[in-house]
């Protein structure tokens, strides 16, 4: 048989009768949740703040009893439909509304959904529900009022007022606890950064955004094959900058080191500029020279003594070239940096140092970091990261101009049209 064989037009071939049955009984997002406003938009899609419409149906869980707010709040993440295939897969209806076709769920969404469904930990954001409706995916998470990016910003604007070490200690301990949980489950996060670390009203850290996370036991192909680039550039571990094809959970600990530094100094410690992909050659990943230089300026130039595997990395040649033309200090400057940003706790410095080790095999693991002397000395780690603070962080900003969670408007043009329609209706 060849492809010219006639396809029958029977509806059962395309899910017909079954689809009809399912669509009749599905509960819609809007029947369960009321949208308060939108929180943020990113490459993945949009996150909305929402409130439950069902009155207290859900029994509060015992371990969270204290944390149950009177009004249940949620963060709903709506995945964006793949933009590249948009033009081919969409058409406009007569009233100008864009009709989208199914294009296949992205690898990232599949990962985040499948992993979040399996895991529960106090320091990892809790998935409440997933709703698949009208070609869209809605992931419903517990709502967190704060995140580290916002907290750091609050301490650095308008003037610098450091976060008390006691609170930094609690934050980092909780982050490490969440990271350890992920690693014990053979998951690495691969995108730890302040914006992805949420904190509840009660000072509980919740690691969020598992869109780049994946399982690392027995990968069927090299990790590099799956994703050429992982981790936001400022938090990207040196082995990744060296082009490692196989890497380890140690990349997450480097990111935790960067976050610790940022909590102490209130600005990113290695604020490099990302080298962009060559437009003509999208397959070759550029060497991130500027980022690497930022690291070298503080940690010195790595050599084979500190990092035995150094010469085996794919980017060794680029690294060598960069190191040869580098004229700054070749030894670690981290202690000076630490003192300069006002650090005076010796054990905290030791922890920072062991998180920011070049050699991933020597870098401290989440398990050992949790048992680091820094956490053993007084004051003892408080479960509430906000304990003792004399003020409250401002609430998350909510944008209310776009509450429309269900329509699939993506392009600006259509959004405007939609706005127009709303006005007309009024």
């Amino acid at each position, binding site marked *: 048989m060849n*492809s010219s064989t006639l396809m029958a037009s029977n509806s059962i*071939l395309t*899910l017909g009768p079954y689809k009809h049955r*399912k669509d009749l009984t599905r509960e819609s997002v809007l029947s369960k949740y009321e949208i308060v406003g939108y929180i943020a938009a990113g490459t993945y899609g949009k996150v909305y703040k929402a409130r439950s419409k069902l009155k207290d149906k859900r029994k509060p869980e015992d371990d969270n009893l204290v944390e149950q707010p009177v009004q249940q709040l949620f963060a709903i993440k709506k995945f964006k439909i793949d933009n590249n295939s948009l033009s081919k897969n969409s058409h406009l209806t007569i009233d100008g509304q864009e009709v989208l*076709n*199914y*294009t296949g769920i992205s690898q990232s969404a599949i990962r985040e959904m*499948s992993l979040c469904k399996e895991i529960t930990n106090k320091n990892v954001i809790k998935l409440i529900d997933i709703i*698949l409706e009208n070609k869209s995916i809605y992931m419903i998470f517990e709502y967190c009022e704060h995140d580290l990016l916002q907290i750091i910003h609050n301490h650095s604007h308008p003037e610098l007022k450091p976060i008390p070490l006691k609170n930094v200690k609690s934050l980092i301990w909780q982050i490490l606890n969440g990271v350890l949980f992920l690693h014990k489950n053979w998951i690495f996060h691969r995108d730890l950064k302040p914006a992805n670390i949420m904190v509840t009203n009660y000072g509980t850290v919740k690691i969020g955004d598992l869109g780049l996370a994946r399982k690392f036991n027995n990968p069927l192909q090299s990790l590099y094959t799956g994703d050429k680039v992982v981790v936001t550039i400022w938090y990207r571990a040196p082995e990744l900058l060296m082009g490692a094809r196989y890497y380890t959970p140690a990349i997450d600990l480097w990111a935790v080191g960067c976050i610790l530094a940022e909590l102490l100094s209130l600005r990113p410690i290695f604020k490099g500029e990302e080298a962009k992909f060559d437009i003509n050659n999208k397959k070759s990943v550029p060497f991130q020279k500027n980022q690497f230089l930022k690291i070298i300026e503080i940690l010195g130039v790595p050599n084979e003594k500190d990092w035995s595997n150094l010469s085996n990395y794919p980017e060794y040649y680029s690294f060598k070239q960069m190191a040869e033309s580098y004229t700054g200090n070749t030894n670690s400057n981290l202690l000076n940096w630490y003192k300069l940003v006002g650090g005076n706790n010796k054990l905290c410095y030791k922890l920072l140092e062991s998180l920011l080790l070049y050699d991933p095999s020597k870098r401290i693991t989440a398990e050992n970091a949790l048992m680091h002397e820094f956490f053993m000395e007084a004051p003892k780690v408080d479960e509430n990261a906000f304990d003792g603070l004399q003020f409250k962080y401002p609430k998350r900003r909510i944008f209310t101009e776009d509450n429309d969670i269900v329509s699939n408007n993506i392009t600006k043009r259509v959004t405007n049209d939609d706005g127009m329609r709303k006005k007309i209706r009024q």
Partner: protein
Amino acid sequence: MSADFWSSSQRGKWQFNRQSLLDQRRRLLILEKKMIQNGFIKDYPNITYDSNMRIYLHNLLIRLGRRLNVRQVPLATAEVYLSRFLLKVSLKEINVYLMVTACIYVASKVEECPQHIRLIISEARNLWPEYIPHEVSKLAEFEFYLLEEMDLFLILHHPYRSLIQLQRFLTANLDQYHFLLTNDELQHTWSLINDSYITDLPLLFPPHIIAVSCVYITIVLKKALNSIRLNKSITGDGMGAGSTGGGSTGDDHPESAQMDAHGTDKEMHIDDLMALTSENSASDNNALESGSGLQDMKLDEDTIRINRFMNFLGHSHINLDEVSEAMQDIINVYVIWNRYNEANVKKSLQYMLLNR
């Protein structure tokens, strides 16, 4: 959690016992009946989810999997998705060819070896041109419904890993148990595991139970098989046309690549297994009494190995009742395979899907 089976959704949300599985299937039949009564779907009495249909679906998965070079683990994942889906959806309301394609599409993403949706749909169309639509969107749509039926629980634990863990454990404790699986035995166990996905076992038992029962069949029953073969000198083509053993497409396991190369004489034969189920121990004795002196020595070695394996099992705290229950199901697969009639299933599906 995804670290191990014990805290997984596979155990917590998708593990049944025989009764709850039966109940679930009854509920589906009632639903199906209602839909027929209300005229939502037509009745096709020949379309049932019986062992014939299961082998047919298993073979569809393997065929598409081979074309796409999907490895054994994602293929196994796809087959579990299929079993789960068919616990909630009637065969009479869907297109199984599109379902099989969707299962492979989702499984290859979850197992981190994604393939482009266009490639998958075009390969599926090459295999089943009358049944697979041109539009990518139809496959993508099925993905949504498949995920929804599984309540988004996608991560699975398979007996393949248990098998490797077992071998690692035996290697590490060689001093204590003096037992290791040979390459041939590993390969054989691997292909038995492949075939176990035709059964309900993945919905009923933890992966290690399935792995151990496949090892048991390989180690303990193999010896009895050899002896039966000697006695009866059975030839025959064994498991019938659709037989796997070569069902592995896989190089997931270093040894498995060679698996296809090994001739059918390494495979279990239906008649052998039938004989075994009834006269297991008797045939052992027969075997020991028959054959040449050389053969006796070989059998004796086997007996020592069996004893060592049994010794390990005895010390392992593995639930042996479950192992023997699972073993029966796997052996049954080969019995039903002997009666498998592909043409019938194919025709019934054609009649339903194409009205001809």
